């Protein structure tokens, strides 16, 4: 059915600067994402991946093109598209449970029902024993679990993740990667995840988008088996797969060259 899924249709984004010049953050980006697909986005800094995510979330309106979700145009932020931020997006004045229940509460869901929802999500994310803690009492990894649970409690169609694990230490990060895969499989949500880590992009992307800078555009797209392999499995085993290593080196070289090119260009200028 052509109506379901997320369509990015010829999206360009141009920022006009106060000094009269402008920056082409995105140029003619088109993409189609089916329901339940997991896509990671990689690219050197300045390739417009965060801009793309902000357009998808509805925080920015593209200068050209449009976003269509399940048959209707995206005009602004909405509960159908949930966001998970790197950090600082939790509400410190609420405890863990109130944070998780925020979306349903705003939507006017009765107490008993949202209690059931939060109980289930706190169980899945391993936060059951922390539900009455204030969020500032939790570690960074725990806080990101709360952010994930809060997003899921709202039953969004699409989950947008802006480097959700970027601020975590390596071990916690690995655990959280497993959790993201688990949640993806369990809930069947469409997930777009932005990351700086090539390994993370390989692990958490059925589809992997490499973007190039100036202007921001899609450079190359991969379809990868590692996310499926990783569900319920040891992620370290997945990483030892020869194909995994080969793809990782290929993408690293690709991004390395892009960075080199940017450096060269600035030196010429």
């Amino acid at each position, binding site marked *: 059915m052509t109506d379901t899924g997320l369509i990015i249709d010829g999206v360009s984004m141009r920022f006009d600067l106060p000094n009269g010049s402008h920056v082409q953050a995105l140029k003619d980006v088109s993409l189609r994402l089916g329901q339940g697909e997991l896509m990671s986005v990689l690219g050197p800094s300045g390739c417009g991946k965060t801009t793309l995510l902000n357009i998808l*979330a*509805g*925080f920015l309106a593209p200068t050209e093109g449009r976003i269509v979700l399940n048959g209707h145009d995206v005009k*602004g*932020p*909405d*509960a159908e*598209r*949930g*966001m998970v*931020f790197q950090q*600082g*997006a*939790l*509400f*410190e*004045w609420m405890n863990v449970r109130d944070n998780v229940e*925020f*979306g349903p509460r*705003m*939507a006017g869901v009765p107490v008993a029902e949202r209690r059931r929802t939060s109980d289930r999500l706190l169980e899945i994310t391993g936060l059951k024993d922390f539900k009455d803690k*204030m969020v*500032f009492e939790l570690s960074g990894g725990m806080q990101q679990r709360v952010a994930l649970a*809060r*997003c899921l409690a*709202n039953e*969004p169609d699409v989950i*947008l993740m802006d480097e959700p694990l970027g601020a975590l230490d390596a071990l916690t990060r690995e655990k959280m990667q497993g959790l993201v895969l688990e949640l993806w499989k369990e809930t069947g949500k469409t997930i777009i995840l932005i990351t700086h880590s090539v390994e993370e992009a390989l692990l958490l992307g059925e589809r992997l988008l490499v973007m190039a800078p100036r202007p921001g555009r899609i450079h190359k797209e991969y379809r990868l088996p590692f996310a499926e392999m990783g569900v319920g499995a040891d992620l370290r085993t997945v990483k030892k797969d020869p194909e995994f290593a080969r793809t990782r080196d290929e993408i690293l070289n690709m991004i390395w060259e892009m960075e080199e090119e940017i450096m060269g260009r600035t030196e010429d200028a």
Partner: protein
Amino acid sequence: MTGIAIVAVYAGLFVAAMIVVGLLTRNRARTGIDSVKTVTFGDESAVRPNRWASVISVVVLFLIWGAFTGSKLVPIHVPGPFVGDTSFTYTAENAEGQRDEATVTVRVVPLGSDEDEPEVPEGDGFAKNDVASLAVYRSQIIRVEANDEGADAEGFRVVAVDGQPLDGLGEGDSIQLADGVINLTRRGSLNFVPDRGVQMQPLYLPSPERVWQALTETASDGYRNFTLLEHLGYSLFRVLAGFALGALVGIPLGYAMGLSDWFRGWFDPIVEFMRPVPPLALIPLVIIWFGIDETGKVVLLFLAALWIMAIGARAGVSGVNITKVHAAYSLGASKWQILRHVIIPNSLPEIFTAARVAMGVCWGTVVAAELVAANVGAGMMITAASKFQQTYIVVMGIILIGVIGFGIDILMRKLEGWLVPWKGRS
């Protein structure tokens, strides 16, 4: 000179107490995380006020106060003014060139006592003994020759005091005695000034017990038609009323300025102009407009609190992390819900900081406004008392104003810790 000595003594006490307490508590095990920190110099978080120092500091202030006012509560005093009987001799020379010696007995009595003169025998010779009596901190010209025989004759003169010759001395010169000093006047009369010591006169600084007495008196009998509680209560009421109104208008105004470009544009010039105007500068205008009654005071304090609260609320809104707002929108919150559940709670720390500042400014302003014109209030109490030289009431008022201001701030901090536990934790 005395000032330098006091500062030196104070510095000495500071160092001595530090060394003594340091030696006494040297072997006591410190507890908590700071006890294992080896780097404390430069680590501000490891610097906690030493409770011993605080207690000793207050005690030292009290001791100095008592020592310089002759307080009975304090064992050590700096030398006080001379009180009691003293005497000196003088030598007179009559027209014939004969010399005779006589004694002057001076009685110095405490302020307010009867100045009864001591009785002494007249003595022999042509120079007769004299008596004088005066209150402490006063001086008196003693006309020693007044009762001497032949004092009217040409050539009669006083040649020495206590054996110190007066020859060659003139106006402004003085002779040091055991319990005072003799200043020579222009006409050569002897002006006796008893030793004043280095204690403060009660007019300049009353003793602690005098201030305490003033406190109990004003608490029970009142001062100028109002009891002490009424004076303080009125001041506190004005502050609370002005602050409450200022917060009631200022906080929504600040939110509106943080959320709407029209509000920001409209009120920015007004707020930015009024902010640097000290509330004290508004007192004359407020009195002209609203008179010296409660209305005027409350309006003044309202204006003092308004801009601080508006700016605090505006800063609170601009301090909201945009990702929190984005997150709330993505969770389906409406604008109103974002204001209610994200912006307002997130701005509470800033609002509390502003409220603490505003309360401090209001408390200072109310006292100043009452100094200018009021029938009742802490500030009125101390100005009225100063006009009648009731320094003990002035000192008592200053102490109470300080204690209440300190109390308000502590209360606000407690309230803040209770209502905004996440402050500085995000």
